[in-house]
């Protein structure tokens, strides 16, 4: 229809203000997480790995332990603080692995239709069909358990996801006339993908990245929970959850606080993703000024 209703996102309406509020909320949450991670490099209330059999399962506030201690007498707050390092580290590196390899693969598949595309996408389907946890177990068996292996396994598991999203979003952009125009003045497919297509699918990818980021943090927690991720004594949120298992009936607090840390960080990334997508859209620039 030749209807000329302005794009919904162009309006300073309620939905837009909501989205801005999301962005601010996401940014605030993540700032706290990042600040905590940085702070924990220099200072924590107690040594997070120090076992003190004289004070197991202290409740909140006792003897200066704000969140209490676990069954080994380790300070819970300090563990969560240091655990944020592991979470961010795994999240950033796993997602980086996935996008650095996945985006070019997806773009390559979209740029070369036909047999090449089929082969590339079927290979990625095979990897996709592998549960990440199984992949991690294989990798851990081959190398050694630890944060690094977990991170690489998660990264590899997410490559096909990124490749698929990139390919799907790129296909429609490759059909657009400005791509034909670029070809008509001599640009090659690789250049076209990085210069013309990628910027136009960035918003989709960023949303995907933030989702993967939170999934990676969850996956690391899951792997550590299973005991094949981060190894003791390095604190990790998943690790803390695993340790809390035995006493969860007695002191649910041991599971609640690390769980809350995971949930908040994941929420922060998701909220931020929405906001960043808006910020990258040049159509909204006028509005922002």
């Amino acid at each position, binding site marked *: 229809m*030749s209807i000329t209703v302005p794009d919904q996102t162009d309006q*300073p309406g309620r939905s837009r203000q909501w989205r801005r509020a999301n962005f601010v909320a996401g940014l605030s949450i993540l700032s706290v997480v990042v600040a905590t991670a940085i702070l924990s490099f220099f200072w924590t209330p107690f040594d997070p790995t120090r076992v003190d059999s004289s004070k197991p399962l202290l409740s909140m506030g006792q003897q200066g332990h704000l969140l209490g201690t676990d069954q080994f007498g380790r300070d819970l707050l300090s563990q969560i603080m240091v655990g944020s390092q592991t979470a961010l580290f795994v999240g950033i590196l796993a997602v980086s692995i996935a996008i650095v390899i996945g985006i070019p693969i997806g773009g390559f598949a979209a740029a070369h239709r036909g047999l090449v595309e089929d082969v590339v996408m079927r290979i990625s389907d095979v990897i996709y069909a592998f549960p990440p946890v199984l992949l991690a177990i294989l990798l851990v068996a081959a190398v050694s358990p630890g944060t690094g292996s977990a991170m690489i396994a998660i990264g590899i598991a997410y490559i096909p996801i990124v490749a698929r999203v990139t390919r799907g979003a790129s296909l429609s952009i490759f059909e657009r006339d*400005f791509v034909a125009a670029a070809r008509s003045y001599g640009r090659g497919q690789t250049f076209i993908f990085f210069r*013309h297509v990628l*910027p*136009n699918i960035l918003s989709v990818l960023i949303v995907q990245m933030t989702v993967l980021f939170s999934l990676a943090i969850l996956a690391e927690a899951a792997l550590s929970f299973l005991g094949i991720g981060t190894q003791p004594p390095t604190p990790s949120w998943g690790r803390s959850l695993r340790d809390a298992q035995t006493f969860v009936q007695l002191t649910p607090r041991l599971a609640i606080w690390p769980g809350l840390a995971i949930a908040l960080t994941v929420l922060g990334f998701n909220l931020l993703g929405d906001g960043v997508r808006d910020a990258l859209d040049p*159509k909204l620039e006028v509005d922002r000024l």
Partner: protein
Amino acid sequence: MSAELLRVDDLNVRVGSTPLVQGVSFTLGRGERLGIIGESGSGKTLTALSIMGLLPDNLDASGSIQFDGTELLGLSEDDLCEVRGNAISMIFQEPMTALNPVMRIGKQIAEPLKLHQGLSSREAADTAVRLLDSVGIDRPESRVRSFAHELSGGQRQRAMIAMALACGPDLVIADEPTTALDVTVQAKVLGVLKEQVVANDAALILITHDLPVVSAITERVLVLRGGTVVEQGPTDVVFGRPADDYTTQLVDAVPPMSTTANVALKPAPEPVVGTPLVSVRDVHKHYRLRRARLREPAMVVKALDGVSLDIYPGETFGVVGESGSGKSTLARIMVGLNRPTSGSVVVDGIDVSAGSDLRPLRDVAQMVFQDPMGSLDPRMRIGDIIAEPLRSLGTAGDHSQRVRTLLDAVSMPANIADRYPHEFSGGQRQRIAIARALAPNPTLLIADEPVSALDMSVQTVTLDLLKQLKEQFELTMVFISHDLSVVHEICERVIVMERGAIVERGDVGQVFGRPSTTYTESLINSIPRLDGGFLNA
């Protein structure tokens, strides 16, 4: 035209505090046919949607819309559902998206019948067949079992008309019902629409930007501009003696071929001399479709089927044909975007047919695309868009001077280089696209439907610009269009294409004035004309 059916009084539509429609008032009698014309952004579609109560949620309508004594504005959604599809029905521009792709046509036509008239499934199905028959779809008994994608564009729009008329509505609103169709199909569909509306005693509101279409169908016309009514009255009076300057402009923008029944014979152009710049010999382009079933052989579509032509330096060469005739494929082969399956194409001594190096072609042949919304990278600034071909071709140095010169050549201010495409109107974007095409200083400019997506008055300006640039940059131009009147205006020689082959060629005056094939003749007779004569062609 006895009783009053619809009275719109001081209709205002706004988004936030921005008015989109302001103080629109008109009345419509029973059985009356009213045209609403205006360019994009004039508020014509919003006016129609207000009547249907289909405005998007973020828009507010105020004023009064009385339909058959009932106030429609402010009516509850449930009550509106009673009116919609029953007393008022609507025909949309793009039947492919307006029809449900996974529902058989017959079922879709039957749906409003069952809903509003309480017919049984069987009765509704029978009625659907009868309705399809009445809008001129052959073999309606089998067609009711088709899906939308199995019908042609014209058939889909006929089916839409059948659906709109199913419940015997008092008012039919048609929003650009034929804009997406080829001219020959348009003429037939408009004929059916008019005939059916008259036969059903329904009133019609026809919304379009196309003046000849309005004049052929309606008795009264309303001219909208920027959300306000600038003129209204009997169609022949408004178009014959426009009182308002804007209406005059619109009427003047109608190409000469559309104003009279007789094509003014263009004088024959100077005979072509020298060696051809473009030489196409027996070119075929076949596309292999994905096979539908494993055992069946893959279908082959012959987009081009033995095309040969020569284009000489300095001329404007027209290519006309309906959709699917292969004209865009021909264009894309000439700029090296596609390779022909067989045959030879030589552009300025460069062979573009075989697996040759296309690099040298890039600063010889450039293309302007149809849709300026899609042909400019939305994430790039204007300056970068225009400089891109220069960078691509490895021209060294600072391109800002060249960008400024090019912007000036297409009459755009130089200070827009830092802005993004979405900040410009369709006509402005097309200028930017033209500037980009001119950047490598090509000798051959191929324009594929360069004005089809633009408003009528913008078309005229853009055509004038192309003419002027052709002189200024000493270009040879290939002008591709489905619109014969535009080709007539700008081209010297022309070919007419049908299903991948050239059916007629020659000087524009000769081909359009004395067409030698019935296909060309039907194309010419189908051009909407202000006198409305084309409907009977």
